[in-house]
């Protein structure tokens, strides 16, 4: 087939350019059709490398297709389809077009076979995701998108430095598993980690995502961090440092989500938490762990999008986003509440949901490897996920107190998108074999043993019990929690402001002193000239000048006659 080596991501990127031109009436055909075409192209790709272009001395490989890249590209295009369905009511064409470029470049990253084309798509992704936030159009979203952009440009620069050093080192541009033993690979890892929302620069995520539109946040939750998980999975499997970074992210996400009042920021922190699980799995690095990470990335994208769709529906219908303003919405938004709860159960890895069949593979891998501390931390984290996302989100949004708000469920397109994703969450939980067959390594894991199910239920339900016991301590307050972004939003600006004031003062002093000296010098010179009273420094009256000019002219006239 001729189309078989066309990079699937480019379908979405070129399609995005058509979106503003085409009329509003036909736009849904494009936004729903393009992801399906992309999906078709992804699945018609045989394994191997295609679509290569020479660039100076190097080869760009736009398609490197294998089970891992196919898995991520598949979930990215399912996400684009479901998100587009959800976003049918989105009036901002800029957001839709940006989303399509964003999704297309994420798929581009996933298929990139060499570091140069990976970097190209990586940067397109940064620009497009910034536009998604910027498209909200408020002053606030402008400031936030600029902060977001700066962090990602910084990450991109680290990545570029790393890639150049790596190519100079090895002479190869192929993107493959790397060892953390050179300047180049360390910088590449740092660049990847910034997009994975790893510390210390993790605050960009919870800062930016909750400011996107009701539909924009759904897309944002899926691509940047999971593309980072993909490149880490391919580039640094078994890099031990990722275990520690991952564990940190897991507990950071839980603690910050517990303190948070904004419903979508709770979910944003829980993205960091979930990516932490994946990084831990990548760090463990066994086949079981890597399979678990790939499966978890897949299920996570779906249920996190579902959760954000549910939150987005509440935002869309009420215009409110703080837990303190919400509550009791289950009465008038039963479907939104139902789908939100399905998402919440999935993220908490309840049996019969998608999270159960994916997350347990990662903890199983820790147990298989006798990583006792890691295993206990992962178990604690599983309990914590139910606490901060599984119960906290639905409880404070849909139950809690009665806020008196009685908005109806959102329009049909949004309801349908939520039902679709809720169906996928349950479907994957009941029939895990379909997902397992797509994983990079053969799976010999049976999630549904009586022991495992009972133990997970014990762990989760007792966490839920703890939540309701501690409910008085969980009362929402009108607060935010300081994060590492405080350094670049408060500390550095104030240092800069103070230091520039100091610089300004010193500069003023120097200039004043210089002017004084210059003045003194001029006065000295003029006095000296006055004293000399030379021929040229005297004051002559204008009358005498005119007289002498008249004399010269007369002499000239006289001379012209005597010739």
């Amino acid at each position, binding site marked *: 087939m001729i189309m078989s080596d066309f990079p699937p991501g480019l379908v979405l990127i070129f399609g995005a350019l058509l979106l503003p031109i085409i009329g509003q009436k036909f736009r849904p055909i494009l936004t729903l059709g393009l992801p399906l075409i992309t999906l078709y192209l992804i699945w018609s790709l045989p394994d191997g490398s295609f679509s290569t272009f020479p660039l100076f001395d190097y080869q760009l490989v736009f398609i490197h297709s294998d089970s891992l890249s196919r898995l991520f590209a598949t979930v990215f295009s399912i996400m684009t389809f479901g998100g587009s369905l959800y976003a049918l009511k989105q009036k901002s064409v800029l957001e839709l077009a940006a989303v399509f470029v964003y999704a297309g470049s994420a798929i581009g990253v996933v298929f990139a076979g060499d570091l140069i084309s990976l970097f190209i798509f990586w940067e397109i992704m940064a620009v497009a995701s910034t536009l998604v936030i910027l498209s909200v159009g408020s002053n606030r979203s402008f400031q936030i998108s600029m902060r977001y952009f700066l962090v990602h440009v910084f990450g991109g620069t680290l990545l570029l430095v790393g890639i150049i050093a790596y190519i100079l080192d090895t002479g190869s541009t192929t993107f493959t598993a790397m060892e953390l033993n050179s300047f180049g690979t360390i910088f590449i890892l740092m660049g990847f980690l910034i997009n994975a929302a790893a510390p210390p620069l993790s605050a960009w995520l919870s800062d930016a995502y909750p400011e996107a539109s009701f539909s924009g946040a759904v897309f944002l939750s899926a691509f940047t961090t999971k593309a980072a998980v993909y490149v880490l999975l391919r580039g640094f499997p078994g890099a031990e440092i990722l275990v520690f970074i991952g564990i940190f992210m897991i507990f950071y996400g839980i603690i910050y989500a517990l303190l948070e009042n904004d419903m979508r920021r709770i979910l944003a922190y829980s993205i960091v938490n979930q990516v932490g699980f994946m990084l831990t799995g990548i760090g463990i690095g066994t086949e079981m762990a890597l399979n678990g990470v790939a499966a978890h990335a897949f299920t996570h994208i779906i249920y996190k999008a579902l959760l954000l769709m549910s939150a987005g529906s509440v935002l869309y219908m009420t215009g409110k986003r703080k837990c303190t303003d919400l509550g009791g919405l289950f009465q008038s938004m039963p479907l939104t509440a139902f789908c939100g709860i399905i998402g919440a159960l999935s993220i908490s890895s309840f049996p019969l949901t998608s999270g159960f069949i994916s997350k347990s593979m990662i903890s199983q891998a820790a147990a298989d490897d006798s990583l006792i501390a890691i295993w206990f931390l992962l178990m604690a984290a599983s309990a914590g996920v139910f606490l901060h996302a599984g119960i906290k989100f639905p409880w404070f949004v849909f139950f809690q107190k009665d806020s008196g708000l009685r908005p109806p469920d959102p329009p049909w397109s949004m309801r349908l998108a939520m039902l679709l994703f809720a169906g996928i969450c349950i479907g994957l939980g009941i029939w895990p074999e379909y997902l397992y067959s797509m994983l990079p390594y053969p799976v010999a894991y049976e999630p549904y043993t009586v022991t495992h199910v009972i133990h997970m239920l014990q762990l989760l339900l007792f966490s839920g019990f703890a*939540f309701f016991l501690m409910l008085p301590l969980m009362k929402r307050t009108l607060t935010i929690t300081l994060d590492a972004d405080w350094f670049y939003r408060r500390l550095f600006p104030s240092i800069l402001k103070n230091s520039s004031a100091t610089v300004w003062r010193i500069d003023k002093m120097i200039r004043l002193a210089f002017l004084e000296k210059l003045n003194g010098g001029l006065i000295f010179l003029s006095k000296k000239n006055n004293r000399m009273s030379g021929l040229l420094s005297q004051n002559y009256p204008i009358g005498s000048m005119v007289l002498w000019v008249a004399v010269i002219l007369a002499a000239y006239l006289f001379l012209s006659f005597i010739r």
Partner: protein
Amino acid sequence: MSNENDKHWLVREKTVRLLWRVSLVLLSLLVIADFFINAHPYFKIDGTFGFYAWFGLVVCVGMVLLAKALGVFLKRKDTYYDNE
């Protein structure tokens, strides 16, 4: 809204009390179930009776308290950054 009967059936006090009771029964049943399954612990302690139940409870209480403690230092009014 103060009248019990005006409320949605799910949030009436009677239902809430019933829900608590059912949940407590369910929790105890889950712990009792530990007698009937043959646990194959990965390490030692996770095979002990009711491990997952108390572990989940203790860990969650711990995390809420930890969050609360950190909140003392890190919480600010949500208008903190508004004058940017």
